[in-house]
């Protein structure tokens, strides 16, 4: 039980990825929200991806925390995108009457990264590390201010 309730916030270029654990206690969900906001202040990312692909039970409490977290990230000047909602979770959430209406969503982490302006290109032949398994291309470039930076050797150095 303890193995699945720890949360993880990682950084990919200047985007934070917060992976919500599959079966967290309410406290673990609250802790992850705190971690996201603390890292938001520390690293000043352009956005936060809230990955709920491991989440098998999204009840009204959990949904509210996700909505609130997205709202807080936006208040702090970042963009928040929820990714990876399972079909059974989406059906249940819709029936329960919360559709995370005000929250931006994406099909995958790749899709969310591209929505946040992290451009994945298949050019320079260097593997971009730290992106997820679905990344099929060979290098990752940031276009934060229209200036390609090439494969970043220091994550988060784009700003």
């Amino acid at each position: 039980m303890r193995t699945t309730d720890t949360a993880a916030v990682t950084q990919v270029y200047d985007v934070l990825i917060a992976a919500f654990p599959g079966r967290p206690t309410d406290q673990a969900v609250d802790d992850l929200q705190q971690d996201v906001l603390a890292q938001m202040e520390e690293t000043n990312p352009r956005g936060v991806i809230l990955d709920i692909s491991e989440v098998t039970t999204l009840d009204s409490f959990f949904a509210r925390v996700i909505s609130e977290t997205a709202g807080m990230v936006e208040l702090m000047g970042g963009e928040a995108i929820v990714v990876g909602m399972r079909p059974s979770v989406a059906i249940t959430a819709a029936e329960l009457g919360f559709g995370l209406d005000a929250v931006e969503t994406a099909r995958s982490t790749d899709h969310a990264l591209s929505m946040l302006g992290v451009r994945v290109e298949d050019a320079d032949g260097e593997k971009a590390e730290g992106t997820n398994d679905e990344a099929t291309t060979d290098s990752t470039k940031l276009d934060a201010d229209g200036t390609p930076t090439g494969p970043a050797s220091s994550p988060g150095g784009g700003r």
Partner: protein
Amino acid sequence: MSEDGGQTDAFETAVTVLQSGTVRVRSEDDILLARQEARAVAEEIGFSTTDVTRIVTGVSELTRNMHLYAEDGIMKWREIEAGTDRGIELVFDDDGPGIDDVEGVLRAEHSTSGGMGRGVQGTKKLMDGFDITSNPEDGTTITVRKWT
């Protein structure tokens, strides 16, 4: 001032109980245990992934309400059979202060302290049968059924 949720049709079916169990809910960890046990039972009964998710989500809502409003409560689960139908029955029983306005909660008019109404009303939608009894003397008892 006992009130009835009204939707009792699903409980007129006579059922055979195949197996049963109990989870006491006094902490957030217990909410997780109740969810895990409900998931294991629902999967064993043969519910679809979506129905398992509906059931476990309902368990999460109702056990959290018990913990929030009554602090201490019990979830009983029963694997049930009626003819060729198999299903699960879950009873959430507490001795808390009871719900003043059951009808209001079912219409989700109560959204204080994080939305009990939403959770209760939503759970009713996720299940095939739903019954609620609540008064200050005996606390609250919610019974739900879901058929495969």
